[in-house]
């Protein structure tokens, strides 16, 4: 019994040596922060109707950096915006890509086990299977909407490197197109206040002058306890009624 008390004492000391935030976040069996659960970055099922929000709510998205886009792209971005985003790929039910998928006003579920994180998104049936063992991207990637994700743990932060994108998505609803050279680094950090702080750095040498970093907060949506089906093509009546110039092929 004395020995047991000693062990508990050592454990308590070890716990005491940790920072307060490290103590108070949930952890999986392998000691890594536990990111699993239903999360959402915005929308009615997270915050409720705008009129019902107290003024102090954290509903407003964090301020974004101005997109650091190269001079030659500005006319194209303006054209997309003057066209009121008729060419927005998601209006045509294409996958939103990364990181835009995380901004959709619908829940996502993170499933975590040693060596792998799987993210299931309600929006557009998107999913990502992310090895977390620090491996490299395959060197024969075909370009895709959601790219290829590999990850490693940097202390308590899951760092996801995403590459292998096609050039058919926008980074937001404001016409910010990109090339197949897009490179995204996401940093997921579980916080003591039961959120995930997500920092996203985007780089694209063909369209940007430097890195574009945005931040999001993922919260447990009080009105959504599971991811459900969202089949965008079921009854997409909008396209013929969207005004502005017709999209010409991809969003290039």
């Amino acid at each position, binding site marked *: 019994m004395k020995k047991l008390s000693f062990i508990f004492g050592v454990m308590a000391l070890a716990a005491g040596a940790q920072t307060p935030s490290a103590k108070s976040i949930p952890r999986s069996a392998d000691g890594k922060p536990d990111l699993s659960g239903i999360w959402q970055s915005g929308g*009615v*099922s997270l915050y409720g109707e705008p009129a019902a929000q107290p003024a102090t709510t954290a509903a*407003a998205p964090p301020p974004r950096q101005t997109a650091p886009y190269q001079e030659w792209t500005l006319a194209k971005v303006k054209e997309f915006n003057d066209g009121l985003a008729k060419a927005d790929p*998601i209006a045509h039910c294409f996958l939103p890509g990364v990181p835009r998928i995380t901004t959709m006003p*619908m829940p996502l579920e993170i499933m975590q086990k040693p060596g792998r994180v799987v993210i299931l998104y309600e929006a557009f049936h998107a999913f990502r299977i992310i090895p977390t063992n620090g491996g490299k991207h395959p060197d024969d990637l075909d370009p895709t909407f959601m790219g290829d994700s590999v990850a490693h743990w940097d202390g308590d932060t899951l760092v996801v490197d995403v590459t292998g994108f096609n050039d058919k998505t926008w980074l937001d609803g404001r016409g910010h197109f990109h090339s197949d050279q897009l490179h995204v680094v996401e940093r997921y950090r579980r916080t003591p206040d039961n959120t995930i702080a997500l920092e996203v750095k985007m780089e694209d040498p063909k369209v940007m002058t430097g890195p574009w970093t945005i931040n999001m907060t993922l919260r447990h949506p009080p*009105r*959504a306890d599971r991811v459900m089906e969202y089949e965008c093509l079921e009854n997409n009546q909008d396209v013929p009624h*969207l005004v502005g110039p017709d999209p010409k092929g991809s969003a290039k």
Partner: protein
Amino acid sequence: MKLKSVGILLLASLPAVAHHSFAAEYDTKAPVALSGVVTKIEWTNPHIYYYIDVKDESGNVANWAFEGYPPNTLRRVGFSRDLLKPGDAVSVTGWAARDGSKRAASRELTLSNGRKIFSGPPAN
């Protein structure tokens, strides 16, 4: 046609675009308030639609389509798919389509029993 402007106080909000740019299809400067009888409900993605026969002062009837949130969102805020039925007399506020078709983005729906519920997002 009973088509009049309504003043709606919109609080600042920047919801992520769920599917398409609001302004690409609907005119935020053209609010509508229509009353009529529900003829059809499409409980579908990416948006639900409900259709209402609206009678004007001369007795002519026009069928209007109202776009709303996707089904999952409505379910999560307490708008179940049996809340609205063909034959129900309702009133709706929203914003008219830019292209002049008899379509609108719905916002607040008033059911025949007087209950009010949001069926679509605020203009943004």
